[in-house]
């Protein structure tokens, strides 16, 4: 009985604790929201300084691109995309071969605004401006419907993200990590939707209009703290976690129980 008790303490309590923790987690804090301040001369000068220091090596002095990095003059490049890349820490990267992934941004609000404004004004970017996402105007039901249609396949029904592949262009076995949407500020959501950064496709106004964008952002907001009416969400990854928990917590507890009930002596020589 003593051994059983020890096993119980060692396995079940941490499992229960982890389960309880997953149930009580708070939503991740927002990354700081984008700012819309128009730039004065000082801001533009700051932007130019930062651009020359951090960006021109890969993107070119004229933002026309180099062998190290793409241009900032075509496609969806504009304030929205620049702000998204800087705000989520995807840019700058130290090494041209480094993978682009979210992280902490080395810039503060003012510096980001300076860069965004400078690049747009100096290079006349074609892409969309920072969208004004209005959460209150977004319809939650419509947002859920649109999220399931456009977003769930990549970002998962619960917004936890996932993985897929990029096989072409000699990138054998290359994988793509699809990010978790927790911590994504509504404006960030709007920027990503409108500009399709990295592996993400573009959802322009012809496919998702502004009202629909508000709705999607509203639902993404909801996913930060969804109603887990059923109890501990165990990671929100679906049947895989459920099976594991069923075996360990369910069958595991019951096996401990029958070891208590029955005898343990097996075969003897």
């Amino acid at each position, binding site marked *: 009985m003593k051994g059983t008790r020890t096993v119980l303490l060692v396995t079940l309590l941490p499992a229960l604790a982890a389960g309880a923790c997953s149930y009580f987690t708070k939503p991740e804090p927002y990354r700081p929201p984008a700012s819309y301040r128009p730039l004065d001369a000082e801001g533009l000068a700051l932007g130019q300084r930062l651009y020359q220091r951090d960006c021109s090596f890969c993107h070119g002095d004229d933002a026309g691109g180099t062998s190290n990095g793409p241009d900032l003059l075509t496609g*969806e490049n504009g304030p929205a995309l620049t702000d998204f890349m800087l705000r989520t820490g995807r840019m700058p990267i130290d090494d041209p071969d480094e993978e682009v992934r979210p992280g902490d941004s080395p810039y503060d609000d003012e510096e980001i605004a300076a860069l965004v404004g400078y690049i747009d004004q100096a290079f006349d970017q074609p892409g969309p401006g920072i969208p004004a996402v209005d959460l209150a105007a977004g319809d939650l039901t419509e947002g859920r419907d649109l999220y399931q249609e456009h977003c769930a396949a*990549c970002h998962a029904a619960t917004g936890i993200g996932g993985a*897929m*592949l*990029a096989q*072409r262009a000699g990138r054998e076995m290359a994988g793509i990590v699809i990010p978790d949407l927790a911590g994504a500020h509504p404006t960030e959501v709007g920027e990503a939707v409108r500009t399709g950064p*990295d592996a993400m496709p*573009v959802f322009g106004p012809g496919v998702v209009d502004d009202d629909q964008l508000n709705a999607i952002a509203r639902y993404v907001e909801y996913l930060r703290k969804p109603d887990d009416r059923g*109890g501990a969400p165990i990671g929100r990854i679906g049947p895989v976690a459920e099976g594991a928990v069923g075996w360990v917590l369910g069958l595991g507890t019951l096996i401990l129980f029958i070891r*208590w009930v029955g005898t343990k002596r097996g075969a003897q020589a």
Partner: protein
Amino acid sequence: MNQGRVRILAAFGASMLASIGLTVVYAVGGDPQIEGALLGVALGGIAVGLVLFGHHMLPGGQFVEPRDIVPHATAERPGVEAAFEAGVEPIERRRLIAAAFAASVGLLGIAALFPIRSLGSRPGRTLFRTEWRRGRRAVTDAGRPLRVDDLDLNSVVTVFPEGHEDAADSQTLLIRLPDGVTVPGPSNWSVNGVVAFSKVCTHAGCPVGLYQAETQELFCPCHQSTFSVPEGAKPTFGPATRPLPQLPIGLDDDGFVIALSDYTEPVGPGFWNRP
């Protein structure tokens, strides 16, 4: 065994309290987590009480009883065989009658299988065709037709033939490729950089719902088949063996995207008589 008795009573007592708690919780509106916890105690208390009772208060010790290593009634087998033979022997003598009986039961059995056919429609050419026809507009599942300019570069949208927005086999991806990217195949099957491919995975039929915009690859979440659009949606990884069929598209007089014909091969997973 006083300590044992106390523990047993405590277990049953906890169970009783939990059951009362359950009725209260239910009456005030219910809460799944509290209900679950209380159910656990209510049932678990009885469980623990019973086992403690068995361990401490029921006659313990091991008993023994003999068992037949081999069932011992083999002596009766000749009797069984004789009894059975008594019924079979007359049948064996009357072979024609026996054969007629067997044939009537057999044929009835075969006839009884026929209603299985009523369970579904015949496959026929169903798997070889979708609802796409020449001139049918491509619409979103909300029924909205699309122009090329509705799509940005590197944009993907799922479309259906107009009037058939719930036709699972007809689901199609409209992809506006970035400048400079083309697909092999007939050039008149695409229009202004927009191409259309079937969304039904050729492996096991899941919608190929993920689009990798940097390399223009479609990725199926079910078994990770990857299709390279610039190579004609050819599978580049995963268990899929065939490319996604391409839908020939054009524009109608109002500039909306239309199909020029149905798919020229069956969409989706393979089957026995797929060419």
